[in-house]
């Protein structure tokens, strides 16, 4: 066997055409990376809008019997906040990260359907724009759950409810098309050697996310179509006076609504499963168990929707079934948490910002998981449902579960997307402000709920310590907002002055780090052969061996001379 010479880094020609720049090139792009960036920027803007609405809610509740905003405006605020965070931030942000990284992580040069991919983005933008245009007329005020009959034409005559329906339809269509694209790309365009057992865990999560979207989204689309025809075309699907059923809405909504929770958190689980091994310098513990638990959570997620309806007049046996399913979904979720801690165990943990956000996620999501099991106990739910205990629970699950992982992903992948590092000190400041602010805001809300304060009330009486507890929560929310602001500043600043990242600043495991930062339009000149879940580890080892003149065993992962890797 021949001895290898040390690799000479060389620039390969990516394309004969010059890369397009300027406004029109973004408008017409079908490049998954540019679409991904547009997704992430747009959804982050919605995150800031939704966050502003949350701060206004907290300001209103900062004093008992406050008159800062009217009941009407308050109802509009919490409706906009919930809808924005779910439909315009978390779900499409995951789609944005997936758009950017799914092809890179599986060694593909673009998505399977690039133009459909662009359409998904523009549908999202249109849905969000029309929804937010409603603030100049009548924003919706029936809550993000839009229970009928409150959401019907008689009780919500304004156009805001229709803007909400429009948003659900367009973002739903956007998500379905995106999910089909993710699935088709993963099924067909993986690098040679990347069997299902070597798929990165983030991709397993995105696959499950895609299947959940494809199954759940058409149900909410049907539900809002029925609502639309009830509102405008004289049908009576939800009208009890005409033998329609108001409970039908709740069933359809939550059949979508609970899988939606997993649509939001599963990609976050995937991000954590990618980041922890990198910063613990240790392989993921129990790859198969984590992949399998992702899929089983996805399946069980379709059986638990009635746990949102424990206080409705449904037969008790239906409630018991939903309770059992909810208990058992805690098992694969627990398995994941155990596996993540085991990944850290006996590692050498480097406390970089992405890892801090993952640890923040682990500690917060554990609390959300435990309060979730408590809420699954039917009689306990009778006391706690529709109170601030539930508000605390969903924020531990969605903010702790999805938002902290999104921030981990931002800090982890920003160098790949922009070619520059984010500032570590500012990142750590952002993390600690967000973590402390989060706990101050939401931990006390469990107690507010236990003390009997329902959700979605614009005022409360100063009973017991309710005023104090609410003030703690309000102060916490502003600390949390400062933490988010620190990351915004960090991103803006680092775009200009961040340290040059190089292709693989973290010495990570997955294929996106094989490309230069930012990756060229075609992603890969040469697609390496995949031999494990951690292809970059294999490639680094091989390059080291070549450099030291030791022949690499077996087939070369990287064709000699074609390397882009800057080890």
């Amino acid at each position, binding site marked *: 066997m021949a001895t290898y010479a040390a690799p000479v880094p060389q620039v390969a020609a990516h394309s004969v055409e010059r890369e397009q720049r300027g406004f029109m090139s973004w408008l017409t792009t079908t490049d998954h990376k540019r679409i991904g960036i547009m997704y992430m920027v747009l959804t982050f803007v919605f995150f800031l809008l939704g966050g502003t609405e949350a701060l206004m809610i907290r300001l209103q509740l900062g004093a008992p019997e406050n008159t800062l905003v009217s009941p009407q405006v308050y109802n509009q605020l919490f409706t906009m906040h919930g809808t924005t965070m779910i439909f315009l931030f978390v779900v499409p942000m995951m789609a944005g990260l997936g758009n950017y990284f799914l092809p890179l992580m599986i060694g593909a040069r673009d998505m399977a359907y690039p133009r459909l991919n662009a359409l998904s983005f523009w549908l999202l933008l249109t849905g969000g724009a029309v929804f937010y245009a409603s603030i100049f007329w009548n924003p919706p005020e029936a809550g993000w759950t839009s229970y009928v*009959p409150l959401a019907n034409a008689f009780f919500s005559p304004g156009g805001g409810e229709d803007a909400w329906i429009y948003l659900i339809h367009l973002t739903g269509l956007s998500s379905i098309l995106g999910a089909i694209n993710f699935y088709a790309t993963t099924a067909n365009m993986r690098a040679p050697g990347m069997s299902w057992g070597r798929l990165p865990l983030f991709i397993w999560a995105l696959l499950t996310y895609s299947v959940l979207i494809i199954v759940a989204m058409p149900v909410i689309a049907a539900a809002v179509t029925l609502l639309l025809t009830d509102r405008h075309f004289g049908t009576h699907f939800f009208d009890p006076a005409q033998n329609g059923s108001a409970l039908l809405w709740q069933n359809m909504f939550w059949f979508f609504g609970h899988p939606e929770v997993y649509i939001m958190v599963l990609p976050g689980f995937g991000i954590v499963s990618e980041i922890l091994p990198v910063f613990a310098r240790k392989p993921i513990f129990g790859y198969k168990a984590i992949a399998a638990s992702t899929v089983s959570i996805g399946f069980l997620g379709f059986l638990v929707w009635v746990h949102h309806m424990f206080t409705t*007049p449904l037969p008790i046996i239906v409630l018991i079934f939903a309770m059992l399913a909810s208990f058992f979904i805690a*098992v694969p979720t627990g398995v994941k948490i155990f596996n993540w801690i085991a990944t850290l165990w006996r590692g050498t943990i480097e406390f970089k910002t992405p890892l801090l956000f993952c640890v923040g996620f682990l500690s917060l999501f554990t609390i959300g998981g435990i309060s979730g099991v408590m809420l699954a106990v039917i*009689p*306990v739910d009778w006391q706690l449902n529709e109170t601030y205990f539930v508000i605390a629970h969903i924020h531990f699950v969605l903010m702790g579960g999805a938002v902290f992982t999104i921030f981990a992903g931002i800090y982890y992948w920003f160098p790949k997307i922009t070619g520059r590092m984010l500032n570590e000190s500012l990142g750590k400041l952002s993390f600690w402000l967000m973590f402390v602010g989060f706990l101050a805001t939401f931990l006390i809300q469990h107690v507010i709920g236990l003390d*009997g304060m*329902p959700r979605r009330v614009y005022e409360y009486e100063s009973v017991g310590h309710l005023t104090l507890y609410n003030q703690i929560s309000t102060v916490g929310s502003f600390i949390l907002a400062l933490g988010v602001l620190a990351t915004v500043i960090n991103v803006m600043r680092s775009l200009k002055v961040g340290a040059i990242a190089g292709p693989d600043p973290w010495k990570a495991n997955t294929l996106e780090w094989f490309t230069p930062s930012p990756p060229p339009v075609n992603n890969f000149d040469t697609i390496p052969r995949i031999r494990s879940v951690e292809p970059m580890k294999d490639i680094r080892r091989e390059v080291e061996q070549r450099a030291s003149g030791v022949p690499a065993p077996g087939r070369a992962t990287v064709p000699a001379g074609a390397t882009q890797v800057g080890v």
Partner: protein
Amino acid sequence: MSHLLPTTLAFFTPQSGASPNANEINDLYKIVLYVGLVIFVGVEGALAYALYRFRARKGAVAAQIHGNTRLEIGWTAAAAVVVTALAILTVVKLSSIQSPPNSGPTGDTLVGEGNGELYATADRHLPPNGKALKIKVVARQYIWQYVYPGATKADELGAPYSYEEMVVPTETTVSLDIVSEDVVHSWWIPALGGKFQAVPGYHNYTWFKISKPGLYRGQCANICGRGHARMIATVRAVSPTEFDAWLAERKRLIEEANTDAAHEREALNKQTGPGQVENP
């Protein structure tokens, strides 16, 4: 008035102490809370220990472990055992939380009630002797109406009713039939047990049995529109004799008002000239 504005509320538990179902929920809640706390301390403790013990230090080398099948099966089984135990516990406790006991010996005698009247629905749980004070809770934007037994005509006409404040006798099992006339509301008096949605077109049922006189306070728990926060409900428990007197007085006042209204309607009907009412 002691229960109207409690100055201290329990920090870790829901309100209880006024009705057996609320107490039982509280007991169940505590068990679940303790199990949750143990898991919380275990998981967060392991996480904190791992972060401290295995932080990157000079000379430390990460163990290249890919998994441990026995350990993984072990903790999956352990998690399954915990949730199965919780499931069994809840199912066992559920029926006593749902099913009311008989009224106490000092409870109201419920004249005209409980003479074997059967309900077609299996959802309404009545005490073993079938006797309960049945009150219909009618939710509307944004007020609660309570219709008590004692209708003189069909369709509950002539039945005494009250708004916002429900008056009930102590030591008496009260069975509620919760309905809505417009949007979805949710009945909830925290100290008297869980909440139940009032869904138009459906009946929902719950019960309570109050031992001590007092005022118990709650409010609508499901967003029902702009007045949601002010849709207050209170339950005032009084001795059975006081209750009977109160109910008779309500009935008299309502009948009197109905009679007056009937007279006025008649007068209007007979009126000719300006203001004449056109009857179809």
